[in-house]
């Protein structure tokens, strides 16, 4: 049989496995690193000509309940997808739902973010699953993720209980070629147990990407005679075999991300090394170098093991080489940068509660002070307001939130602000997409995950519906207008309404605009007139702007500059920058 193959990322592999297993309904809220699963389902259902209902939900609880409803009371094979912190949003429902005997089948795919790379905290979904007795799988590669997804949905359907697949950033985003079978034709043998080495001195137990890393390190340092590597795929309930393996080894090391789960399930503190005794770092991602250093130390001098020693001449030779640091920044031309610039310009010392999305990067422009969880931008602002108002002070508080996060988590907080008479400015940055996670359409764009038109909802209608009276919509590229609007909003707060003021800064995400060929195009004349004050370089954070210390001038990388022209406003010698001075003078 000629089997088709395709190079996919782990998330698409999961989608493929589910589609082949007869998935009928899938719902998700995007969140790195899980966002590509639902579009993957759409891609493969179209490829196979299958009817599968797919939808973006407004949050993870909605996604879970849609899938659960379909599997619990209908006989559907359903799935929902989210990131690890998203599981917390869905958790109240999951906790009760796990007790229900399903009519159909239900797989919850939850992608963890060790590190964390793009989340506020680390969190181990396996821990929650084990704690509440929900079966959980931890695949070690995209290829295996496809198999596990196929297996899990069938298993859930047969056994009538929900199953969790926990992926991690490194599995979800690794790229590998997988086999594409006809729906229903995949045969899966789960790979668990001893997978490498034949030693008995040290038994290593690992799951997920940690397993794959340990596997490669054992090979590199030549430790196969000293250790045995046991792979765990179903973390809860784990196989009886595991205890036998532990019994047969002199010492055991558990390598897993990110909490102690297998390690805690095994117990046996005498024999077991891992996060508990500090052998494995207590937080953060497990990298190749961490595993290699760890095994080098433990196995030093044993058998043929070549412990790794770094050659520090590399660092020495680099000591005097100027290296451009590239901290995470908003894209060149990003409308958020313009909005933050306006906010910061008028009130450099305001309180800036922020939220979660690309725009958390407003920190670097001094226009975001906090980042707790989705929606906290608004509720924090309420708390700050009260803290000052009790002392009789009305201070400028400028909260910011993106459009997708607003719809996910800010409706109740904003209504609370209205009924509890809170006064602050909320800037809703509407770029018509969930950019950070890969450009998923938001409810107000009126497009489904399948790319077809649906009913849209306008943010301004929601805001007025919640009782907000001061509502302005501005183009953030119009910096003077944005600044004067913010000033005006603060005057409003000083009035009698006792309500929050809302400003929607609306401009399409640059990546979307670019896709439509709508680049703004007039050449920037910043460099010619530059006097080297570094103001734009320091306050603006555009990746296209660099500073040349020899020429004492800034430089612009035209391969990424979008000619948005917003940097003019940051420059004291340009007419645009001069124009802004008037705001500083007559400040509220």
């Amino acid at each position, binding site marked *: 049989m000629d089997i088709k193959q395709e190079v996919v990322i782990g998330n698409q592999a999961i989608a493929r496995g589910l589609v082949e297993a007869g998935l009928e309904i899938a719902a998700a809220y995007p969140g790195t690193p899980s966002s590509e699963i639902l579009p993957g389902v759409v891609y493969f259902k179209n490829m196979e000509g299958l009817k599968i209902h797919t939808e973006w939900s407004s949050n993870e609880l909605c996604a879970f309940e849609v899938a659960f409803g379909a599997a619990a009371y209908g006989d559907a094979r359903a799935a929902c997808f989210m990131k690890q912190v998203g599981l917390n949003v869905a958790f109240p429902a999951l906790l009760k739902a796990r007790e229900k005997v399903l009519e159909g089948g239900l797989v919850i795919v939850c992608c963890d973010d060790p590190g964390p790379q793009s989340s506020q905290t680390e969190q181990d979904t396996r821990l929650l699953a084990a704690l509440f007795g929900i079966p959980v799988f931890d695949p070690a590669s995209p290829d295996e993720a496809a198999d596990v997804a196929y297996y899990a949905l069938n298993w859930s359907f047969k056994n009538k209980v929900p199953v969790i697949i926990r992926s991690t950033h490194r599995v979800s985003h690794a790229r590998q070629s997988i086999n594409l079978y006809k729906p229903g034709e995949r045969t899966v043998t789960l790979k668990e147990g001893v997978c490498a080495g034949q030693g008995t001195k040290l038994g290593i137990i690992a799951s997920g990407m940690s397993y794959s890393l340990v596997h490669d390190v054992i090979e590199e340092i030549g430790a196969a005679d000293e250790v045995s590597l046991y792979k765990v795929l179903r973390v809860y309930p784990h196989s009886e075999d595991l205890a036998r393996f532990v019994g047969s080894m002199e010492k055991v090391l558990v390598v897993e991300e990110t909490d102690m789960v297998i390690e805690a399930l095994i117990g046996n503190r005498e024999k077991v090394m891992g996060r508990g005794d500090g052998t494995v770092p207590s937080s953060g991602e497990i990298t190749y*170098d961490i595993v290699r250093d760890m095994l080098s130390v433990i196995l030093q001098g044993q058998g043929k093991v070549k412990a790794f020693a770094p050659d520090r001449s*590399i660092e020495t030779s680099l000591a005097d080489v100027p290296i451009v640091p590239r901290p995470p920044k908003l894209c060149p031309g990003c409308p958020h940068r313009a909005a933050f610039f306006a906010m910061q310009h008028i009130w450099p010392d305001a309180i800036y509660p922020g939220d979660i999305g690309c725009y958390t990067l407003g920190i670097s422009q001094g226009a975001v002070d906090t980042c707790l969880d989705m929606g906290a931008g608004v509720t924090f602002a309420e708390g700050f307001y009260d803290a000052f108002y009790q002392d009789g002070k009305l201070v400028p508080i400028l909260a910011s939130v993106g459009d997708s996060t607003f719809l996910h988590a800010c409706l109740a907080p904003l209504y609370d602000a209205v009924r509890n008479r809170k006064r602050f400015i909320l800037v809703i940055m509407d770029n018509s997409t969930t950019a950070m996670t890969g450009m998923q359409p938001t409810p107000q764009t009126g497009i489904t995950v399948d790319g077809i038109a649906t009913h849209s909802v306008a943010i301004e209608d929601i805001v007025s519906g919640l009782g907000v009276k001061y509502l302005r919509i501005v183009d953030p590229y119009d910096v003077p207008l944005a600044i004067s609007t913010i000033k005006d909003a603060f005057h409003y707060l000083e009035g009698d309404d006792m309500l929050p003021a809302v400003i929607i800064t609306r401009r399409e995400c640059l990546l979307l605009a670019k896709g439509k060929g709508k680049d703004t195009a007039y050449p920037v004349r910043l460099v010619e007139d530059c006097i080297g004050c570094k103001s734009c370089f320091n306050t603006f954070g555009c990746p296209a702007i660099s500073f040349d210390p020899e020429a004492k001038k800034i430089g612009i990388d035209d391969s990424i500059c979008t000619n948005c022209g917003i940097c003019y406003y940051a420059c004291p010698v340009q007419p645009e920058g001069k124009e802004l001075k008037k705001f500083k003078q007559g400040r509220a």
Partner: protein
Amino acid sequence: MKHEIICAGIGGRGVLLASTILIEAAIKSGMKAMASDEYGMSQRGGSVVSLVKVGSYASPFIGRENGDILLAFEESEFYKTLFFLRKGGLALVNTRSATLGASIDGMLKERQIAYRLIDADGIARDADMFQSANMALLGAFASFGIEPFTRDVLETTIRSRVPEKFLAKNLAVFETGFETARRKAKG
């Protein structure tokens, strides 16, 4: 056969397309391949590192001083990822400079790392294809003929990956990269 390859550059400049071409070229040649990408939150202008492992590996990750080949699509990113490269490895760097300076030069010699400096941006700009510096560097890499990344295999893979509209020009840039690196090898 096994290769550990690091592709380093900045976002929006085709690093991920280059690494995709490498994995697909390896798979076309009947080998196992896997990749892992690291990029910051911003989609353009941030550091991008794509690790590609070809052969019987379980993970796509490369340890310090384990990489065989470093393709640096931007000079600064070359320095940041240099620690990946093993003794005796190979590096290709997109830079306009004629040298990397005495201290780097000495260290690379000491570590027996062969390297080639290619003005991939210049090659691409001459062809009016500024965004295609990645193709110039891949062309230069092809000139080493390291199996399975020969000129033929890479060219076929590019054909299957790059949209028709840009294909001819991309292949021309690839070709110039190839020739430039070959001339340098002789010169």
